[in-house]
């Protein structure tokens, strides 16, 4: 179990370009499809990650690790998700000056960045399916929360932490 956690989070750490939400599809594949976590729990982690300090990658690794295998699982998963960064950054910082402006590197990023956008978009779709649909019917109340929170952030610049707290309160009141 610990070894499988370790390998999954090494993969997630190695391919989480652009940080944060772009890794959701990979977590879905590695963690949810293995039956270690439901999509509902994955969304819980995302909300908690938004409300607590620290990067999403670390938060999710720690959370999944501790649920699967206690404190030891949390340590193993967190170390695994950081390890690829550590190795790549160590290598990059040694050859830093030479490659920063290298056109192959910028070409690589030119191609990867649109994929990161697609990854996040597919994450939105995946999460929306679980968040908005109950028993094959779209929940109107959930749509209302979606629209309200969108305007709160986009138009009125409300901080995401407050939006999540507000949505939680609304949830308690209307469901």
């Amino acid at each position, binding site marked *: 179990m610990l070894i499988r956690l370790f390998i999954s989070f090494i*993969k997630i750490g*190695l*391919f*989480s370009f*652009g*940080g944060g*939400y772009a890794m959701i599809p*990979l977590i879905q594949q590695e963690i949810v499809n293995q039956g270690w976590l439901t999509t*509902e729990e994955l*969304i819980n982690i995302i*909300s*908690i990650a*938004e409300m*607590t*300090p*620290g*990067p*999403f*990658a*670390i938060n999710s690794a*720690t*959370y999944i690790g501790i649920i699967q295998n206690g*404190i030891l699982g*949390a340590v193993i998963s*967190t170390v695994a998700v*950081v390890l690829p*960064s*550590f190795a790549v*950054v*160590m290598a990059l*910082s040694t050859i830093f000056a030479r490659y*920063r402006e290298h*056109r*192959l*590197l*910028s*070409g*690589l*990023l*030119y*191609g*990867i*960045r*649109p*994929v990161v*956008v*697609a990854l996040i978009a597919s*994450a939105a779709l995946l999460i929306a399916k679980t*968040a*908005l649909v109950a028993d094959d019917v779209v929940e109107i109340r*959930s749509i209302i*929360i979606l629209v309200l929170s*969108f305007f709160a*952030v986009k138009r009125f610049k409300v901080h995401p*932490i407050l*939006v999540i707290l507000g*949505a*939680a*309160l609304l*949830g308690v009141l209307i469901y």
Partner: protein
Amino acid sequence: MKGKILLQLFCTFFKIGSFTFGGGYAMLPLIEREVVDNRRWISQQDIVDILALAQTAPGAIAVNSSIFIGKKVAGVWGALFAVTGMVLPSFIIISIIAVYLHKYGDNVMVAKALKGIRPAVVTLIILAVLRMGKSAVYDKITIIIALAAFILLIFGGISPILVIISGGMVGVVHTLLWPRKEVKNRDVD
């Protein structure tokens, strides 16, 4: 002397790690203030390079930056102490929350609150798509890559890892075929 620097690296990044809500870009100004202004470990010029490079390596930007800065200040041990300081606050907080949420997640009130939060999370992710789309998808090629990747991910059932690698390869081939064309290297936001 070395021990003191290592301890300072750990404490500085523990502080940064404790206050980086929402992760990522929100904490770049905080890193700059601590590392450049307060500690004077890194010059203003170098920090720009470091932060740019931290965004090109895989993994969380906050974590990558701490590793870069730690390495620059005190070598491999510096990197180790910095990244441990950066990660530890999340680790402690999440461990506590995970245990409680797992225990009380079935509580009716908690379940309703979590159900209310879910659509708001969808909103936050949609906003991230819009924000990143602006800086990453801006010409014909990047639009095609983004659309193709989206379709492959949704309908193709293809591993995200393969899609990332393919996108990178298309980018490299594009740069090799049109080497003179200036590739914009804008920062992802």
